[in-house]
């Protein structure tokens, strides 16, 4: 299936889903006015990809620096979808890039890891 690329904007993240390489990347800022509308095509492409993917190693690089409350709620659903991909023999490696000075992004990552236990979670601290 086709890769998905959405260029970043001031209030929207870069979405770089290289389905062909089983590598998914989210990077930047996420506070669109309507997070549901922004993430709908992202979630739908992901669902199609996961529906046809079996026994794969999938790498996810999560590099959002800031996400607002409505984005947070939707991101939780994205990770739920990734968690369910294990039932098809897939292994999802979630690389959680976060500012070493700020625990909010890390706290959310730790919550995700606690909720969705099939995800192979790696917290990756960075310094800006």
């Amino acid at each position, binding site marked *: 299936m086709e890769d998905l690329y959405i260029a970043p904007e001031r209030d929207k993240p870069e979405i770089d889903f290289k389905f062909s390489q089983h590598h998914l990347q989210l990077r930047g800022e996420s506070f669109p006015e309507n997070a549901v509308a922004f993430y709908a095509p992202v979630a739908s492409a992901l669902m199609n990809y996961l529906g046809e993917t079996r026994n794969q190693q999938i790498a996810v690089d999560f590099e959002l620096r800031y996400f607002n409350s409505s984005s947070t709620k939707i991101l939780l659903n994205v990770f739920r979808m990734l968690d369910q991909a294990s039932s098809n023999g897939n292994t999802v490696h979630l690389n959680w890039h976060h500012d070493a000075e700020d625990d*909010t992004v890390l706290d959310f990552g730790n919550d995700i890891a606690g909720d969705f236990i099939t995800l192979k979670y790696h917290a990756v601290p960075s310094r800006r």
Partner: protein
Amino acid sequence: MHIDMFKAFRQFVTEQGVLFYYNGYLSQPIVAATGEALRGRLEADNGSGKVSRKVFSTFVEMMQNILHYSEGGSVDLNEKVPFGNVAVGRLGERYYIVSGNIISSQHINRLRDKLETIRAMSSDEIKAEYKRKLRGGEQDDNSKGAGLGFLTVAREASEPIEYSFEALPGSNDALSFFYLKASI
């Protein structure tokens, strides 16, 4: 504005440690542009650390709160274009973010209940309630976002959030100003 009034205004703003003030119509591009300007201002004032992120997060939630829920502007209330005021400043070591916008007075009781409930919570309780609501399927019919705006503001704040309602003169109590304040 007379130049003497502007001097007094400038002096007041300086004394109150105002770093940023916005008064006007709101749209998402304005939220994105002012957010970027504020972030630059905060980084110059405080560096790019944890506190700046909390102030920025609170600012975005308050601006989007106005965007979603304000009852229009001070110029023409029949025009339903979001309108509001937001100030960000620092007094000593504490940052504050205050917002003001017009709401329909029928929402006052519901908002007061919601805010009082949050004000009575400890910071651990706020975190727990945030996690619970984030995972919950319950949908607040009045909410246009995730329904997590006030909880997010309270989670970032270092003191209980403050609020005030004030009837809008000439509206026969139909409309009120709603003020919200967080300290970080």
